[in-house]
């Protein structure tokens, strides 16, 4: 469960109400992030209704095979819990980010990231989450989480991240 590696950094930043998904908010995407002024992780991991709990205990990301957007069994297990959480916490919406590893051309990876984000969105909808609460975005290969150039990093970068934002959606 590599997903939880960022928890220490997250805790440190919670007090500031900052966005703490290390992969999303590099200095370069600052203004570009823009999704939900109240976005980021709030509340404590001990509070099961908090976005922090969602990100750290349930897991906010799922991984994909090379050049694929299929939601596999492992991803489904995480997304099932994400769906339950979203239905129990109706005050939040989610932005689903799709990402690709660096082994691909820029345009194609944007399209592939969109496909992955959409696959996750469709899965969450199939588990009962209202479509109006879910939005998608692709970062292609622009925001890798791990920066080495081999499969150990690539496998972590081929991901979707479900980012919890404030607001009940439409």
């Amino acid at each position: 469960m590599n997903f939880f590696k960022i928890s220490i950094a997250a805790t440190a930043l919670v007090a500031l109400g900052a966005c703490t998904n290390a992969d999303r908010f590099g200095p370069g995407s600052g203004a570009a992030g823009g999704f939900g002024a109240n976005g980021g992780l709030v509340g404590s991991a001990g509070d099961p209704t908090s976005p922090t709990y969602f990100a750290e205990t349930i897991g906010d990301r799922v991984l994909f095979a090379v050049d694929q957007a299929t939601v596999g069994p492992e991803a489904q297990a995480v997304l099932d819990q994400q769906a339950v959480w979203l239905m129990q916490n109706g005050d939040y919406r989610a932005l689903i980010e799709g990402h690709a590893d660096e082994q691909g051309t820029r345009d194609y990876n944007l399209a592939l990231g969109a496909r992955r984000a959409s696959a996750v969105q469709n899965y969450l909808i199939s588990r009962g989450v209202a479509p109006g609460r879910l939005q998608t975005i692709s970062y292609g290969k622009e925001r890798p989480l791990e920066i080495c150039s081999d499969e150990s990093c690539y496998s972590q970068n081929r991901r979707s991240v479900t980012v919890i934002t404030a607001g009940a959606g439409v």
Partner: protein
Amino acid sequence: MRLLSLLFLGLWIALTTSVVAQDRSGPLRIEITQGVIEPVPIAVSPFIADNAAAIDFARQITAVVASDLVGTGLFRDVPKDAYISQIDDFDGSVPYADWKAINVEALVTGAVTLTSDNRLVVKFRLFDIFTGSPLGDGLQFAGGTDSWRRVAHKVADQVYARITGEDGYFDSRVVYVEETGPKNARLKRLAVMDYDGANIQYLTDASSIVLAPRFSPTGDRVLFTSYESGFPQIYELSVGSASKRPLQVDAAAMTFAPRYAPNGQTVLYSRSEGGNTDIYRLDLASGQRARLTTAPSIETAPSFSPDGTRIVFESDRSGNQQLYVMPADGGEATRISFGQGRYGTPVWSPRGDFIAFTKQNAGRFHIGVMRVDGSQERLLTASFLDEGPTWAPNGRVLMFTRESAGANGEPALFSVDISGRNLKRLPMPTAASDPAWSPLLP
């Protein structure tokens, strides 16, 4: 890479029956689509300063002319200390024997005047030493002192054109993405520079991710993708004022991979909705949009043929990325790539004769060219990650992004001839990606 070069060298030796410039009977002519084994020795004689104020300009212009010509890989500049005679009268006669004696094939002479109203006037002549005659008429260019490099590029373009029979490409610019910061938090901003890396000027700040700028056919506007709104959307920017406007305000979908049609009024782009990416066309004047592809697969990276009648694009409808050509208004697409591996980022040559592309095969990336029907595929480069070719205005040189591997990996801009020769990295102060070459400047 070494192996590939040797392979091409072998191929070109086989194709080239004689080394063009060394065993000739007619006027000097380099066929740049053929292989040239040895760069042709030329002398770019120090341009004469007609007045004292022009001395520095004369020296700098001479250096840029020589740099442009030598940078093509087609020429080598014979060192000044080998000269037997000096050119000190622009209108005087040329002692051909003195230049022949040091094996110079072509001689460039020039003179620079700085007028009282602060304008540069640059004259030049080109001589074919072997035939002992001028190659074309003398010409002069004039410009403001701040455009001295452009004047030098124009001289070099003329020399190149007269010797190769191809249009030049030195008086052109490149728009690209400057990259700074660590790999997982890259700062990106649009920048524009001369084709040789000089005169860098920034067009956006680094507050949002920007991707893949493309010049308009007149070189005064740029299309690109920005995350400024929070979501990837296409924008158009005026190079002169650096002012920009979104072309797509569409909360339901992200848009990217824009490119102008040859008429400058139509824009192709990709739009992703519900995970499906298709190609759309936008008329800038009317704002009218049309969807050109409807497959459930990924269709992206469109590029018009220079006559505007056809579009080459990439699609994974067959199961992986391949290249297709369709009519300009959509309709049935014909697959043109059939080799091993995946093909993407096709770009139609401004001359209409080739399509350049990125190929991904067996863990390596290549820049390649093929005829527009997909025949005669040739790979020009190989590396960990090469992508996104853009054509020089004359359709004979490609620029592209090469990214190095690893945690400290970063992209740089490279260029290569369509013969596969003269692969080189552009001298730049920072990492850079996604180059797009302008047309020849007016």
